[in-house]
């Protein structure tokens, strides 16, 4: 089971989101850039390290039906999905509290 404490890094969160459909490394970089309207540009070294850690943790796995067998593709696992859902709940709490306090002042 993914641990329930601690935030995911922005990079990991976006990598996991990308891998709801199978993708190779460069695809992830492009997808994250697009998802974040060019705000997040993943460094290839950072991405490589994150992919290996996520594979070790079992949050993602190699995808065996890759279109181009020379390029390694990955896909999110059930564990990975649990981690994403926990993170979404955590982010919602942050957002709610942020809006409650800061948003309240503005009105």
């Amino acid at each position, binding site marked *: 089971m993914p641990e329930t404490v601690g935030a995911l890094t922005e990079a990991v969160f976006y990598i996991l989101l990308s891998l709801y459909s199978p993708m190779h490394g460069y695809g992830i970089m492009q997808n994250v850039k697009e998802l974040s309207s060019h705000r997040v540009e993943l*460094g*290839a070294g950072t991405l490589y*390290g994150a992919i290996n850690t996520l594979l070790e943790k079992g949050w993602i796995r190699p995808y065996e039906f890759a279109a181009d067998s020379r390029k390694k593709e990955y896909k999110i696992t059930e564990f990975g999905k649990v981690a994403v859902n926990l993170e979404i709940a955590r982010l919602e709490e942050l957002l709610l509290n942020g809006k409650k306090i800061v948003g309240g002042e503005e009105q």
Partner: protein
Amino acid sequence: MKKVIWKPYWDFEREENWLNNMAAQGFALTRYTWCRYVFESCEKGEYIYRLELLDNMPGNPQSNEYLRFMEEAGVECVSTYLRWVYFRKKASEGAFELYTDIDSNINHCRRVNNFWFTLAVAELLIGFSNISIGLSNIDRIGLSYFNLPAGILLFVLGLFFFHLSWKMRKKIRQLLKKKTIRE
């Protein structure tokens, strides 16, 4: 047009800056061997260069896998020297950074720190033992003529490497501090 420049660089971040300045002037690095840089002309600012110290020597399966990954990500490996890799990417393809979060940046700095620290310790030890051999043979002129100067040279080199590793540790401390509020 080919251009060869001999230049010693110890600080990889300065070296990276210099290579990017050269590329901005229209000279793209194509090969590096000890202190020797080979450039070929390119369009001004065509490439962005990044240097990285790998965990293993190129040729090792893990390094090969990493280099293959980089290639798939559109990053070209221009040259390797020991565990150092010279990467480049076309500037037209957007920003090119190897590490975009503090953690992975720290990891790389630690690797560079270990690289210089290991070299520093080795040089200091060999230098020190040469100095003591030189001193204990001071009456027998022939031996100490070799051991003393060699020892002192290695010792100074060791101190210099130690300084390089200290600079990296300073950077790591700054990054760790930044990490207390950002990722």
